[in-house]
């Protein structure tokens, strides 16, 4: 879609994932054996032929920058358009809201000839067809289109979701900010389609009035004099808002049917290429019901687990119901169950590490 800018908005990210987000932003959290959360949105943009993508980062964005690089893997290293990483311009100040940061980079919008903007967060695991959503937006002559989904996630103990009241004709009647949704509630996915000129107008007007929140001050406050329409997203979408829901949604991909439809039957998910060799299974390896990524060297036992790139599981080690992130090494005779190990963790030999219904997290580069 030549006329569309993709915006990945990390400004509103919360650090739901505790230790996993202590040194990286939410969108940079590893997921599904070889991805980072942001890969899904990036790949959805690639699929929709949106070749100009701006990532508005907030804090701890270094790993996102390392991961995205020049955008090569998403074919976004382009002179025309391509990938723009737009960090906060005043790192020391408290950021007041996404509109403030859009305002700091208003020139990006002003200079772009495209007429439509798709705004999405960077941590959604889903395959959203932005082409279809933009078509829906244009066909309905909406000023703004919001994307929502019927809530079907694990119950939320903090009021972090926004509930939409949708009229029969699809128009948004009301937005209730910061709620704990019930099953079936129409929950906003922080994804919007908007005309670029209108977005610029909202950015300017709101910031002049000291209002800095796009959803609250730009959308909700304008519900009556703008045509705010909705798109009902019905595809796969895990609500990730806690370690527990993060763990479960990873584990869901051990369902081969979900893995098949999500990874293979639709478009590709692109991620950073690392040129690892295929997984090496030794004569003693025993792997069942698991996802394994390249560069791994497996001599031990792996059950119901997700093994990221470059992990070594030594002879006699047992990994059960666990997530082992990239470059982890699990030594001889060690037993892990219900554990999430962050990157580059080293579990020495003959250890026993067991989590409970909420998995135990071993922090990045820890040696246990």
């Amino acid at each position: 879609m030549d006329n569309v800018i993709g915006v990945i908005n990390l400004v509103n990210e919360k650090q739901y994932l505790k230790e996993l987000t202590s040194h990286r932003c939410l969108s940079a959290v590893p997921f599904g054996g070889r991805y980072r959360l942001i890969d899904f949105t990036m790949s959805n943009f690639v699929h929709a032929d949106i070749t100009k993508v701006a990532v508005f980062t907030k804090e701890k964005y270094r790993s996102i920058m390392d991961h995205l690089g020049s955008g090569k893997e998403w074919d976004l290293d382009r002179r025309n358009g391509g990938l723009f990483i737009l960090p906060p311009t005043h790192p020391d100040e408290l950021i007041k809201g996404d509109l403030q940061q859009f305002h700091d980079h208003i020139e990006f919008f002003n200079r772009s000839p495209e007429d439509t903007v798709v705004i999405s967060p960077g941590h959604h695991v889903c395959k959203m067809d932005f082409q279809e959503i933009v078509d829906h937006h244009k066909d309905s002559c909406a000023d703004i289109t919001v994307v929502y989904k019927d809530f079907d996630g694990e119950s939320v103990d903090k009021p972090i979701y926004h509930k939409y009241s949708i009229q029969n004709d699809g128009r948004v009647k009301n937005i209730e900010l910061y709620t704990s949704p019930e099953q079936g509630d129409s929950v906003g996915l922080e994804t919007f389609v908007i005309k670029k000129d209108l977005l610029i107008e909202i950015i300017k007007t709101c910031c002049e009035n000291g209002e800095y929140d796009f959803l609250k001050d730009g959308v909700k406050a304008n519900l009556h004099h703008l045509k705010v329409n909705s798109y009902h997203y019905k595809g796969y979408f895990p609500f990730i808002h806690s370690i527990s829901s993060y763990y479960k949604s990873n584990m869901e991909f051990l369902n081969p049917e979900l893995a098949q439809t999500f990874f293979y039957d639709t478009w590709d998910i692109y991620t950073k290429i690392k040129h690892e060799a295929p997984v090496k299974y030794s004569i003693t390896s025993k792997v069942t019901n698991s996802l394994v990524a390249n560069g791994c060297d497996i001599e031990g036992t792996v059950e119901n687990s997700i093994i990221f790139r470059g992990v070594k599981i030594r002879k006699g080690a047992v990994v059960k119901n666990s997530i082992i992130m990239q470059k982890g090494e699990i030594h001889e005779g060690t037993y892990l169950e219900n554990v999430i190990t962050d990157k580059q963790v080293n579990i020495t030999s003959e250890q026993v590490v067991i989590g409970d219904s909420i998995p135990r997290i071993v922090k990045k580069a820890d040696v246990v």
Partner: protein
Amino acid sequence: MKSKKWIAMLLAGGQGSRLGELTTGLAKPAVPFGGKYRIIDFPLSNCTHSGIDTVGVLTQYQPLVLNHYVGNGRPWDLDRNFGGVSVLPPYQGKDGGEWYAGTANAVYQNIQYIDHYDPEYVLVLSGDHIYKMDYSRMLKYHVEKKAQATIAVIEVPWSEASRFGLMNTDEEDKISEFEEKPAKPKSNLASMGVYLFDWKLLKQYLIEDELDAFSTKDFGKDIIPKILGDGKSLYAYRFEGYWKDVGTVESLWGAHMDLLDDVPGFDLNDPHWKFYAGNANHAPQYISAEANITQSLVNEGCIVHGTINHSILSYNVHVGKNTIIKDSVIMPNVKIGNNVTINNAIIASDICIEDYAEIGSTSPAAEITVIGDAENISYVATNEKSRIK
């Protein structure tokens, strides 16, 4: 525009007829290897790691797959502003196109391409060997020896020596004689098909050889003997390490099996010398609850429900339930049904193997079974057991 110290010319024109059905519709260097790579990835990655950033790939047969695969050269870091990788099919003169008449003629036809970079040295490589080699050490040796041409050699067992082109050398490793597959070997130093030349010298010999009506236009048969006969300074560079010609079904299969040793003859996962491959984006592999995988290499994109022993699965291979694969190589995008048995076989890309098929033999004396291109072999769906070969 600056000139280049050295560039590489990669002979990728081999039709690979000894690989049979594996090369139908595919040049030999494009044959998949190691679950993830194509043969050409090995010399290309070696070039990158050796600091060579300009590689001409001389193609002949079926260049489209290679063209698309090599693309802009990015996976091998060969997407350079000046230089990089170029696929060079035979040149179309005003009188229409001509095939490359031999390896030397292929380079001869691209003299203009090479001169564009004005290199001091030209490295000539083959596209059908699996090895990890730092060519910059060979260059260093070449310079130190003040050689005009250097041939990389590897010691082979005396018993096999007569299958190779052999170098007889003096104590300084200066080459005194070159024998192509002699019945009675005087040396066990076999040519690896890796030649380094002073470009000025090579150019002169290419031009002369082109005019020689009796020449077969081949590096091994014509150029090297002529250089040697003229008393030029020709040295053997001894390479130590893994090197394997994968020009036959048996050697291709054998090279794959070498990857599966406990301490593999050849390590694909050396972090300091990664082998690059195109099309490297696939989902993680899914290993089901019924699967059993031992002593194998399995690439991303695979879905495995069966038993895999001492085998290699390339990307996007699906293996059904109760299927047993042993001592075999499965190339990309192969779908294998349930209750299949595969032994000592190579299954080419894009094949679909129906349920209950039995492929290959467990007899140690049997040849390697090759199941060729999808277009050539069709499996009729059947509830009966179907036996192939």
